């Protein structure tokens, strides 16, 4: 067992425990904070995968923006803050069965496939620049890149339209 494997296992334990708390804790602000712990440990996993750009982006986008937005909404919807009672619906045993089945099936798939134990090569030092070049390359990902910008524009327009009503007294 190498040091990297120990780091991986520790991170995995933290990620899974906090993810479990996210889906079970009744207090929504606590759930958001546990979500932040999960997302940060996923960032550590990205570092272990030598995807440092994505580790940083994970923190910027998820912790810095999405989690903050969620906490805002939790604080906007006051009634839920007092709902310390059960937050799971009646259907939760079925959900648990389905989740266990999904996990079992996926694990069985992973175990039955022949997967490499180590990477085929090293990540080039210029991987971020390569990504940037590929994102604007007509033979690469320029269409997804521009469509992503249109998607985000549409999301903003839709979200502002839905949430914002001019105060008409």
């Amino acid at each position, binding site marked *: 067992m190498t040091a990297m494997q120990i780091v991986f296992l520790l991170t995995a334990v933290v990620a899974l425990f906090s993810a479990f708390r996210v889906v079970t804790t009744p207090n929504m*602000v606590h759930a958001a904070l546990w979500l932040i712990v999960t997302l940060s440990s996923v960032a550590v996993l990205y570092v272990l995968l030598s995807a*440092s750009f994505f580790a940083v982006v994970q*923190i*910027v986008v998820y*912790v*810095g923006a999405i989690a903050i937005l969620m906490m805002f909404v939790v*604080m906007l919807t006051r009634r839920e803050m007092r709902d310390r009672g059960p937050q799971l619906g009646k259907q939760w045993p079925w959900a648990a069965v389905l989740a266990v089945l999904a996990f079992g099936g996926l694990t069985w798939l992973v175990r039955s496939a022949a997967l490499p134990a180590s990477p085929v090569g090293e990540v080039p030092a210029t991987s971020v620049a390569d990504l940037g070049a590929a994102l604007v390359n007509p033979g690469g990902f320029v269409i997804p890149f521009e469509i992503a910008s249109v998607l985000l524009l549409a999301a903003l327009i839709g979200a502002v339209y839905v949430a914002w009503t001019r105060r008409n007294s």
Partner: protein
Amino acid sequence: MGILSQPVGAIAEWLRNLLLGWGLSPGLTTVLLYLIGAGVLATLVQTWVIFLIWYERKIIGRFQDRLGPNRVGPYGLLQPFADFIKIMTKEVIIPEGADKPIYILGPIVMDAGVLMLWAVIPLMPMVGMDINVAALYTIAVGAFATLGILMSGWASNNKFALVSAIRTVAQMISYEVPTVLALLVPVLLAGTMSLQGIVEAQHVWYIVAAPLAFLIYFISSVAEVGRTPFDLLEAESEIVAGFHIEYSGMVFAIFYVGDFLHAFTIGALAAVLFLGGWRGPGAEAFPLLGLLYLWIKAFAVYFLVVWARGSLPRVRIDQMMNFSWKFLTPLALVLLVLTAVLDYFVAGWGAWGQALSHLVMNLVVGWLVLRYLQAWEKARAARRPVVAQPGQYPVARPPRPAVAETSTEAAS
């Protein structure tokens, strides 16, 4: 490899050999070395705040025609130590109904978010960890500072703390957009996100090539830290405090320390990004000189922050939000596009040619913006219904609401 040309390298080498001599494995030795290096740097940075507090109080004192602290020690230098000892012995009050773990974690997360920035700042040539995404890393750890504030405001079980935390976070995220946009300009000019690489690419300081980006970066970082003139959410002379209203003793001191350190850290970051970092005559040969240059530049920017605190009045919250979203962000967008296009066409002009052409572009944009602001101000003044007559209050008062309207308001 003398101690003068390779100060940190020489010490690290000596330590490594020492540790290896004790029979430790190379991997463990590296980790231990990093631990020592990080520990020394973090400790120095954290204790450095004590000096910063003295410096700021002294400067502000002079701005306000006072002497500043001068009782404890020479020039009052020991005053912050006395304050520190005093605050150590104060009680940490946890208000009733507070969410205890989050209440304590809030300031810790906030301070950690500031301290983490120092992991990537290049202190001198070949020192300071060089990751290839360092510029984005500085944005990312800022998220933890935001998060800490939101946590402590929420956990305090106090309306005012919660409202203030939400407002502070709204301010911080609003000003993060121009920060990120302005940070893109040096990244684009240098063609790398590594801060060491950005410093090395600055044959001409980027403040020459991108003065407007420097201004945007500086203003929006000051606003993100929440210093005067943007400190309206914790304005000590008007309201009691902001999100940290319930905090006392050492836990409050952590906020205080984080705040001062953040102000100095943005000085260091601005120095690295726009003022050439450790660059200066002789810095390549004697790295310690580079550290000195960086410190001087960081202090120059920090002085600007203190200067702004000493001389500018507070802004209103709607003005502050408008300033970020309706002025800084569009300006930064325009600047980014112009810089990108211009940089493409002047690629072969040499360092000074590029810098000067960018400077000309920046000056033209700046002049146009000033003209636009003048026209806007003139139009606003024309719209304002001010009729100053002798004996009258010179500001148009809002019309009194009719009684019927007031009652419906109250009923609804």
